[in-house]
């Protein structure tokens, strides 16, 4: 069967984070928090998890005087997510026939 069910995306927060990073070149911590409606600690731990897997990368910058933490998907992360998507799509297709 094509695709691969990736455990990294089993959790809904990580799935959402990766979905967002697939269509946005960069996304910052506070925007994630606002959109996903999760606590700081929860979000940080899921982001660290994805980072440890090598799926996302972190970049700290300053906007004026405010520090901003930007996240972006790595090439490996994009491939892994695409495979996860393929798996889900195939699963649905197979169940329909």
């Amino acid at each position, binding site marked *: 069967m094509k695709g691969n069910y990736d455990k990294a995306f089993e959790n809904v927060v990580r799935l959402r984070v990766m*979905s967002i990073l697939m*269509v946005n070149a960069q996304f910052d911590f506070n925007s994630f928090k606002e959109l996903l409606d999760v606590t700081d600690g929860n979000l940080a731990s899921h982001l660290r998890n994805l980072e440890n897997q090598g799926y996302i990368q972190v970049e700290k910058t300053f906007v004026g005087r405010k520090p901003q933490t930007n996240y972006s998907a790595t090439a490996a992360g994009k491939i892994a997510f695409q495979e996860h998507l393929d798996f889900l799509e195939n699963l649905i297709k197979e169940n329909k026939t």
Partner: protein
Amino acid sequence: MNKAERELAEIKAMMERSTRFLSLSGLSGVLAGIYALIGAGMVTYWIYGVETSLFEGIDVLTTREILNRTLVTALIVLALALISAYILSQKKSQKSASKFWTASSRRFLSALFVPVISGGLFSFALLHEGFFHLIPAATLVFYGLGLINAAQFTLNEIKNLGYGQLILGLIAAFHPAVGLICWALGFGVLHVIYGSMMYYKYER
């Protein structure tokens, strides 16, 4: 199976909600503001200027005539503003090599125009019923609500612009005597300020 479908729907929803319509041109805001100021200036002249001008008694306009001219001016200002916004935003999206007509631009436009078109029709109702003095307030309030509603799909600055219009609209509602001034401040001055702010921040 259900779980896979739910996950795909989840992914799609997140992708849609996280992308914003970023091609909105700041320059078009400045132009819209200038058109509005010119329009408001012309209307002010017709209403107040003619009576005090040197040609007193020669060129006095009837209320009917002022109304007709105001309506035509308003429609021309609106049309010019929309055309500039469309052309400049499309240019901006070409420059950044992003598509202009996407799910995010459609969401932005429907969030903005549902309140704005309702406001336009509501203003025609006011016109029809003879409540002319409330038209500046109505257009400002509905436009402000539209901007606040649409801000989540585009640059964040739009939200503050929306609150500004809303506040001016409410002032105009309670003090119809300064309605036209509020209208010129909202559609004119605020547009120029926010348009140039956005231009310097994002487009230079």
